[in-house]
């Protein structure tokens, strides 16, 4: 973070550039019929992610203080270099396999890459100190939900690659929508992280929880008895939420059985036409 004085204007265009590069690469990577832009797409995605890492993780900032534009490099910000390396590896694993999930043609490969995304997210949870969630994500998501997905895929997958796996709806528009989403979020975040331009001597209201006294996380979320404290919180303050979640599981179970066991069959036009969809 920069200790900027009044009148410092931080440029937002590098973030926009990074997200646009990323989205252009995603557009090239998405299945678009026979056209392939794999290498260019991979390069653009990697360039966008690298620029985003420089801007967010390493604190590279372009700003205008007076007439001439300047830039500043803050270096890795999390702590020791080991913490940075671990975080960057986990984040790269998560985001890279997420890109592969979206762009691979074969749905089975998509599911496998999504499992790798889940492992990365579990690692990121662990990095935050929430061990229970890291394990629960791997067990519940990768172990149960994803296997169910794979089960249905094996049941329903036709031989070879189906044509609808080789084309996308409006790949360019979708990638642009994602770029707008990510760009707006990251720009709002970076503005919230910058020092505000209030007059000197006033407390800075730029961020939500900027308290003077240090927070003792070792007694809170980083408690050595992690699961015990989480369970105590879960079954005291949030007891109703747990009851509602259990009821929801029961309702979903009954609903799934009701959906599958209904034997009424519709005559859908796509079946008789022989493979082509007409509205």
């Amino acid at each position: 973070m920069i200790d900027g004085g009044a009148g410092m204007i931080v440029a937002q265009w590098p973030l926009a550039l990074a997200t646009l590069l990323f989205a252009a690469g995603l557009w090239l990577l998405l299945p678009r019929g026979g056209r392939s832009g794999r290498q260019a797409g991979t390069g653009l995605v990697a360039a966008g992610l690298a620029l985003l890492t420089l801007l967010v993780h390493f604190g590279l900032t372009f700003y205008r203080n007076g007439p001439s534009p300047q830039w500043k490099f803050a270096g890795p910000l999390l702590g020791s270099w080991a913490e940075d390396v671990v975080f960057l590896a986990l984040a790269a694993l998560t985001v890279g396999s997420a890109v592969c999930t979206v762009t691979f043609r074969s749905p089975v490969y998509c599911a496998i890459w999504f499992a790798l995304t889940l492992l990365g997210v579990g690692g990121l949870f662990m990095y935050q100190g929430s061990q229970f969630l890291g394990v629960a994500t791997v067990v519940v998501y990768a172990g149960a939900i994803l296997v169910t997905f794979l089960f249905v895929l094996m049941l329903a997958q036709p031989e070879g690659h189906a044509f609808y796996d080789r084309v996308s709806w409006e790949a360019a528009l979708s990638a642009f929508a994602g770029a707008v989403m990510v760009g707006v979020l990251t720009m709002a975040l970076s503005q919230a992280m910058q020092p505000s331009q209030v007059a000197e001597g006033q407390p800075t209201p730029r961020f939500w929880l900027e308290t003077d006294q240090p927070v003792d996380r070792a007694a809170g979320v980083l408690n050595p008895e992690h699961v015990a404290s989480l369970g105590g919180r879960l079954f005291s303050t949030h007891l109703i939420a747990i009851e509602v979640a259990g009821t929801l599981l029961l309702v979903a179970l009954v609903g799934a059985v009701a959906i599958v066991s209904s034997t009424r069959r519709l005559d859908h036009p796509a079946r008789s036409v022989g493979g082509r969809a007409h509205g």
Partner: protein
Amino acid sequence: MGEVQLLHNYLVVGALLFGIGLVGLLARRNMIVMFLCAEMMLQGVSLSLVAWGRYHNNFDGQVLVIVILTVAACEAATALALVLMLYHHTDRLDIADWQSLREANQPAFIDEELPADIHPKPEWPELTPAGREAPLSPEKQDELRHRLHV
């Protein structure tokens, strides 16, 4: 360790996961891949919730993520049951088969050109049967027919 920077990094990773999932949900046509992308958006939200919980030094974010896990499991159960039913109607996982659910006065989507399959179906050689086929007893024929249907 810079807690604010940690929060910032996690929120950006969560935003990236959410955005990638959004792109996949909008662009892909396979229903199961669409559901995978929806789950990925949930993961992005979970990441930011855990980061906020750590920043504010309480467990509420993690509790909310547990609820999200439950809802995701319920969603997967019902969604996969639905996908199976839809698959039984058309024998395909293509979401475009269900475009009759679109708004009124919207033109129908028709695939203009279907891309050629990169991996065409292999043509296996066939062996010509040699010798004379022995006649089968009726019980044997019944058994073979039964096996074919099992």
